[in-house]
């Protein structure tokens, strides 16, 4: 680097201290002449091996290579992005700046976390617009039909009124769930923690889900409490009840006709594990990992049928709320499921400390 304005030692020091970013110097043939810390990990090669290697050989990335070539041929700075690392699993913003001697400085700034956040936000907006638009569209359609003359027909008008009410209920529930979720997520809800008797919580949930289950011909069973265990969990009874009720609702909704919902609790390594089991359709392995995400639905069409049967359902936020409630308690959630046999959802909460 004859035209390098910095001396070698100073430059080496600069390469090492660019907080988190990876710096590379490449020559006019796009061969690496210097590589900063992090390049070795990213390419899975010892740093010494990288020197003299071409950019494409070292990183195997078409966008990175194209960006560097553009900066080299146009002799002007170039900006872009590239997925690098093993299996291209890490996203980087790349700055290529030509030096006077024909070389290029490449600065790689990792944006993997930013990308993930963007994806979550994008999915959220897509989902929420879909969830809002669908009921709005049916309400509008029915209102139009009514004003076009259907209002004269008492039977149709009555039927439409019931449907409009159901759609509006669905929207209202969606808005309520959204507010709930955003409050829990932002940490604005303060939990009123107190020692809670797990048996009382479970019995309360069973009582509240009873009528819904009965309407669908689903039996609700309370599992016997563990013998000789006097456990108290540290919980906000209202929030915990809400979480378990959400699980119980799903257990009814996705059950087979004549199936059963079993509610119970047991001692576990983390404290107390509340379980909600059903005899439903089950959830396949890949879905199990994502089911606690906002708006994640295993099968939209199936959920829709069940919604109609139970008279309105959740918008895919229920399990996300359950997860957030559990996590706000310092607990966790999970599911075990066998397809066509059923699922067991659980919420695990820590025990209350000695009073």
């Amino acid at each position, binding site marked *: 680097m004859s035209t390098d304005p910095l001396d070698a030692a100073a430059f080496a020091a600069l390469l090492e201290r660019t907080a988190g970013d990876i710096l590379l110097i490449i020559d006019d043939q796009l061969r690496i002449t210097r590589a900063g810390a992090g390049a070795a990990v990213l390419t899975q090669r010892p740093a010494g091996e990288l020197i003299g290697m071409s950019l*494409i050989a070292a990183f195997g990335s*078409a966008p990175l290579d194209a960006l560097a070539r553009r900066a080299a041929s146009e002799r002007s700075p170039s900006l872009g992005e590239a997925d690098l690392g*093993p*299996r*291209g699993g890490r996203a980087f913003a790349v700055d290529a700046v030509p030096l006077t001697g024909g070389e290029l400085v490449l600065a790689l700034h990792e944006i993997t976390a930013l990308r993930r956040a963007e994806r979550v936000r994008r999915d959220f907006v897509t989902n929420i617009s879909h969830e809002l638009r669908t009921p709005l569209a049916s309400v509008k359609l029915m209102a139009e039909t009514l004003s076009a003359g259907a209002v004269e027909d008492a039977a149709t008008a009555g039927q439409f009124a019931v449907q409009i009410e159901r759609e509006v209920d669905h929207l209202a529930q969606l808005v309520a769930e959204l507010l709930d979720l955003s409050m829990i997520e932002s940490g604005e809800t303060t939990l009123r923690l107190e020692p809670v008797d797990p048996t009382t919580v479970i019995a309360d949930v069973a009582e509240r889900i009873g009528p819904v289950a009965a309407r669908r011909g689903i039996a609700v069973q309370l599992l016997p409490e563990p013998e000789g265990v006097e456990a108290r969990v540290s919980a906000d009874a209202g929030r915990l009840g809400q979480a378990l009720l959400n699980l119980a609702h799903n257990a009814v909704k996705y059950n087979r006709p004549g199936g059963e919902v079993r509610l119970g609790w047991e001692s576990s390594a983390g404290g107390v594990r509340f379980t909600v089991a059903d005899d439903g359709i089950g959830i396949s392995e890949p879905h199990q990992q994502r089911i606690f995400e906002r708006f994640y639905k295993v099968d939209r069409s199936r959920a829709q049928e069940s919604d109609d049967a139970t008279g309105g359902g959740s918008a895919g936020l229920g399990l996300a709320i359950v997860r957030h409630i559990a996590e706000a308690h310092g607990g966790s959630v999970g599911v075990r499921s066998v397809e066509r046999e059923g699922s067991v959802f659980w919420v695990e909460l820590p025990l209350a400390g000695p009073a």
Partner: protein
Amino acid sequence: MDRGSGQAGVSLGHGHERLRPTFEQALANVKDNVLRLGALVERAVERAARALVERDVELADQVRWEDADVNELQRSINQEITSLIARQGPVARDVRELLALYHAAAELERMGDYATSIAKLAQQLAAEPEEPIFRQIPEMERLCRSQLRAAMRALVDVSEQQARDVCAGDDELDALYKSVYEASIALMEKSPDRARQATHMLFAAHHLERLGDRVTNIGEDVVFLVTGQIEDLNP
């Protein structure tokens, strides 16, 4: 590292000192272009499979358009190699390296075509009622790409061992393909109205399986480059 800088190079007579580095440089350029081709194909495979899973018609369209870059680059590699052989008359290891690169580029170009076919299937599937993509397909895509990366690395390092390891991974891909085959038949039997989706997915898996075979061929090219032996590593 075994880089094989070509001891038994071209016979260049008097100009040896001056011309030798030029040939080395040209060879290195060709190799970089083959690696570029590999990187383009890897990206195309990833994007085609993503378009399939996410029903992203526009992304699939981009993949189809960008196949022209792959074809163009392969043509220019062919030209460079042909001209190098004609002008410099390389022998022994150098000619082996050029032949291996020539063949690898041809394989990569075909792999680009498979990615394009998957992108077309993505567009056809997006026109049908939604049916979840068999989970084995993204798995096959990840496996294909990691094998392709490994093959490109074997080429960079001129490593016989790495090349043999690439070929060994192909069995897993074959097993996944068989499992997609079974799943497709099962879906057609259960829901005859989903026969189109099942067939499209089966074809996508078939293309991925073929992609894997082509990666194996590149592994064989690397083995040929190192040993001079032509071996069938995927019998």
